[in-house]
């Protein structure tokens, strides 16, 4: 059986096109330009089809389009596996399906695809504002679904949105409970995240100028919430990268998984790391960096799945961090790192000097090593030199072929990476294993909520020297030249200079000296933090929240919570229904006519099925002439009252007529008849 309404209405068509356009806008950044153009063209084509200007594409054209799209995607991505090719394929299919959409069925499939594509956008970005757009798109798709199922083939109408929005609003409480209580399983299998995303934050290599570039950005790098007091600012060295290799110009990391840096097999038992104090517990909410390293205080440990501890005292995720994600970490701030000595292979790595690099520095370092006894004294002497003669600036002069030489003996103006790099190089030249550590320093402590926001301009580099018996010792040469940098943020230090936040012209950090703006900035910051903690990272907190909500988490209580949600959702609906049912009482005139028929039925004159009331009255007149006048009067009054819209509403006259009617019972009431009459009367009462 073909339903009489298989064809898509105009209103439905327009809303589906609208939903598709919304999805396209969401994804326009993640699609190859030609797919976006094709999709835009499909919308226009479908509109022209609707106007009758162009025909529906014949099947050979469709086949060519499909084949062309597949070929294009293969050329573009090489493989169709992966998030972006899948998305591009989805959108291309969406666009082609649009061209031939004529049935309601097709339109429904497209609405489902729109929902799915909107959800995929959440993988690319998790910003609250963007999510609002996604929700808007979801709502538009819901309106499209309603408009498809509506009958009137009107043009584009906003009327459909009322029902859809009402339904969505009704659905929200239920959604909240589902979100709160449905258990999260954790990834079932690993899926590649978005590729081709720009890596942000501290990068894999460090050459002069890298960190000063980060000073130009006010973006959030990560946020940290401590359990208990926040450690002093000068201890907040967020360690993320360790640069052990130097090629004469740039520092780079040793391979994570190569022979250089074997991973500590188990994050819990830390080989070569001595933990001395009680640990500090905190949660780091990482912004997506599309890199693998985490930022933590040394020396860290964690139970997070997919996170490894490596020998140089830092945490690395096995997958790129493509989404904002929470990591629960604990750190022992007093520690010793490899005090027993280095593995010979690594010992060589940490001492290595490129040939013919920075000869002047190498020479001076050797001299100083001879003159000064012991590593500590040598370090002190070098730091004194920095303190006496160097300038800390975010606009250092450019350096040439031997950057360390030029920096140490000529320009003497630099940013943290210049100091850390030259220091490590100098110590290596003097014969000590040394390396550069990259990460962030400090962060802004939110005044009312106890969390720390670390921004890109907090990026910092410092050094580590290995001293026999003590292990790796952290040295921050920047502290020697600009001790205030350790105690203050860059914003406080350089906030008035032009280059600070040059890449974030609208950053509110700029206006932190205006009371209201600063207050607003902190509130927004908190909102963003709460978003990350309670929405994006809720899976970490689910158990805790449920426990606080329910007292104990067991299936019965969670079930009761669901039941409560369903009842709360339905309650307004049920109340409305009850009220409406009371209001929906049958027309009193109908009830009177039923009474009239019942009286006559008792008198042996049942009304036939399908017999009109006037015909019935005439038949009564024919069979019981005594009742003719009354029956006709009742029937006429009823018909006029009930069906003539101009007639005044006078139920009373009908009531009097019916009540007055006396019908002689045909047979004397036998016992059975009395019982039957009683049952009929009861049923009558119940029905009312």
């Amino acid at each position, binding site marked *: *059986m073909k339903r*009489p*309404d298989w064809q898509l209405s105009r209103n439905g068509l327009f809303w589906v096109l609208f939903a598709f356009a919304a999805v396209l806008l969401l994804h326009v950044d993640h699609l190859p330009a030609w797919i976006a153009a094709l999709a835009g063209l499909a919308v226009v084509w479908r509109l022209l089809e609707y106007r009758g200007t162009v025909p529906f594409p014949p099947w050979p054209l469709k086949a060519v389009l499909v084949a062309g799209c597949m070929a294009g995607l293969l050329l573009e991505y090489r493989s169709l596996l992966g998030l972006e090719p899948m998305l591009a394929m989805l959108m291309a299919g969406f666009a082609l399906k649009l061209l031939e959409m004529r049935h*309601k*069925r097709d339109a*429904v499939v497209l609405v*489902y695809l729109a*929902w*799915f594509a909107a*959800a*995929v956008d*959440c*993988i690319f970005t*998790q910003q609250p504002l963007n*999510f609002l757009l*996604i929700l808007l798109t*979801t709502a538009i798709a*819901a309106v499209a*679904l*309603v408009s*498809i*199922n*509506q*009958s*009137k083939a009107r043009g584009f109408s906003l009327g459909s949105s009322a029902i*859809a929005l009402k*339904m969505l609003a*009704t*659905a*929200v409480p*239920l*959604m909240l409970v*589902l*979100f709160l209580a*449905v258990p999260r399983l*954790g*990834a*079932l*299998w*690993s*899926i590649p995240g978005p590729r081709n995303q720009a890596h942000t934050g501290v990068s894999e290599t460090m050459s002069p100028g890298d960190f000063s570039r980060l000073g130009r950005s006010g973006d959030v790098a990560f946020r940290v919430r401590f359990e208990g007091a926040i450690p002093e600012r000068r201890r907040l060295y967020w360690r993320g990268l360790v640069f052990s290799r130097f090629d004469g110009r740039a520092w780079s990391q040793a391979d994570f998984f190569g022979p250089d840096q074997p991973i500590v097999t188990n994050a819990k038992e830390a080989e070569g790391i001595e933990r001395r104090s009680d640990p500090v517990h905190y949660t780091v909410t990482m912004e997506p960096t599309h890199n693998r390293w985490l930022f933590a205080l040394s020396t860290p440990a964690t139970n997070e799945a997919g996170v490894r501890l490596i020998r140089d005292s830092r945490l690395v995720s096995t997958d790129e961090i493509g*989404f904002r994600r929470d990591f629960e970490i604990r750190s022992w701030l007093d520690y010793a790192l490899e005090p027993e000595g280095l593995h010979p292979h690594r010992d060589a790595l940490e001492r290595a000097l490129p040939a013919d690099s920075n000869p002047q520095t190498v020479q001076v370092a050797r001299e100083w090593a001879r003159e000064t006894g012991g590593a500590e004294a040598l370090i002190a002497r070098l730091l004194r030199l920095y303190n006496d003669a160097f300038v800390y600036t975010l606009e250092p002069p450019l350096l040439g072929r031997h950057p360390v030489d030029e920096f140490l003996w000529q320009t003497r103006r630099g940013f943290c990476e210049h100091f850390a790099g030259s220091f490590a190089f100098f110590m290596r030249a003097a014969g000590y294993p040394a390396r550069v550590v990259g990460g962030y320093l400090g962060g802004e402590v939110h005044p009312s909520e106890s969390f720390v926001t670390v921004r890109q301009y907090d990026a910092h580099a410092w050094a580590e020297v290995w001293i026999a018996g003590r292990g790796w010792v952290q040295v921050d040469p920047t502290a020697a030249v600009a001790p205030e940098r350790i105690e203050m943020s860059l914003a406080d230090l350089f906030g008035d200079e032009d280059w600070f936040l040059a890449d974030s012209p609208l950053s509110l950090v700029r206006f932190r000296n205006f009371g209201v703006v600063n207050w607003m900035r902190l509130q927004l910051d908190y909102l963003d933090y709460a978003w990350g903690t309670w*929405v*994006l*990272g809720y*899976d970490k907190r689910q158990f805790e929240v449920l426990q606080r909500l329910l007292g104990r988490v067991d299936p019965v209580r969670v079930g009761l919570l669901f039941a409560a949600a*369903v009842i709360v*959702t*339905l309650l307004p609906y049920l109340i409305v*229904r009850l009220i*409406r*049912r009371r*209001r*929906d*009482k*049958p027309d009193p005139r109908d009830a009177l006519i039923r009474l009239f028929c019942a009286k006559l039925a008792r008198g042996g004159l049942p009304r036939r*099925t*399908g*017999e*009109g009331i006037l015909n019935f009255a005439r038949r009564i007149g024919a069979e019981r002439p005594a009742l003719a006048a009354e029956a006709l009067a009742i029937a006429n009054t009823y018909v006029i009252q009930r069906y003539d819209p101009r007639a005044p509403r006078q139920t009373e006259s009908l009531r009097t007529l019916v009540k007055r009617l006396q019908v002689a019972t045909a047979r004397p009431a036998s016992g059975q008849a009395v019982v039957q009459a009683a049952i009929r009367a009861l049923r009558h009462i119940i029905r009312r």
Partner: protein
Amino acid sequence: MRNALYRRYRRWVERRTPPLDECLLDYRRLYILPSRAGVGFLVLVAALWLLATNFENGLIFILCFLLLALFMVSIHFTHATLANLSVKPIRAQSVFAGDAATIELIFNQGKARRREQILLHFADSEPRMITVENAGDTFVTLLARTTQRGFLDPGLLTIESVYPVGLMRVWTYVRFRFDAAVYPAPQDDRMRSAASRGSGEGHFAGSTGSEDYVGLKTYQPGESLRHVAWKQYAREQGLWSKQYGDPVDDRVWVDWADYAGMETEQRLARMTWQVCESAAHGRVYGLRLPGVELLPNQGTAHRQATLRQLALFGLDGRAAELDGTAR
């Protein structure tokens, strides 16, 4: 195969659905289950859940649960499309078996409320889509196919809707009691009519066979050209037709006994044909069935009464109950 199963299912339901005069679609009468689109929607929700779980993405969870909640909420919205609507047949046409009977229904709701996309269909007939909007009555006309004589019983009327989101299908089966009769399908009985004329018993007299000229009558289009009074026409007195036959001789009995040896339905079909023929030729005819005798008469009411007797002949209980006076 599927259709056969569905038909069996409908018959099973039909046996369990007593016919009614009027029906209020309350929660006890309405069934609701996900539609095919609704099942697809659940697949979408499942896909979103997988996506959310694998990417550990809280936002996709929100969307996933929002859609799931929408699905659950749609149960109530779709149910409300039919809930508390009352349906009552007001008139049905009597037809010959095999023809489509027109049935008029009233949908009634207490308060104005837009209920769109309500689909109505009997087992085999074309579905019809209606919208109920205003407070009070909405009149709807349906066609029902008929197959056998008796009281009009088009079987189960399916009333269903997927409005407003198409994820749920709410439906009910109702069966109405109709007073209208389905007459037996007439079967051509010309052979017998010739034979019975030949018997000379005066039971039947064909208009062409009568020899006695009675007078002239204005020619009606469709009358045989052989009866045209050509003489008068030639005198330019207009077109007249000659009337033959004796009115007394035109009293025809359509008699059960004439068809002895045939099956009941065969007999009734042929008798129906005779009644129709007689009525069409303006004869005076009567009907004899075992236990029933309608005296010869003419006119629409008589024709209907006769056909009704033929339609309801030999059917049990209800005929007696409804037509106690007619017998």
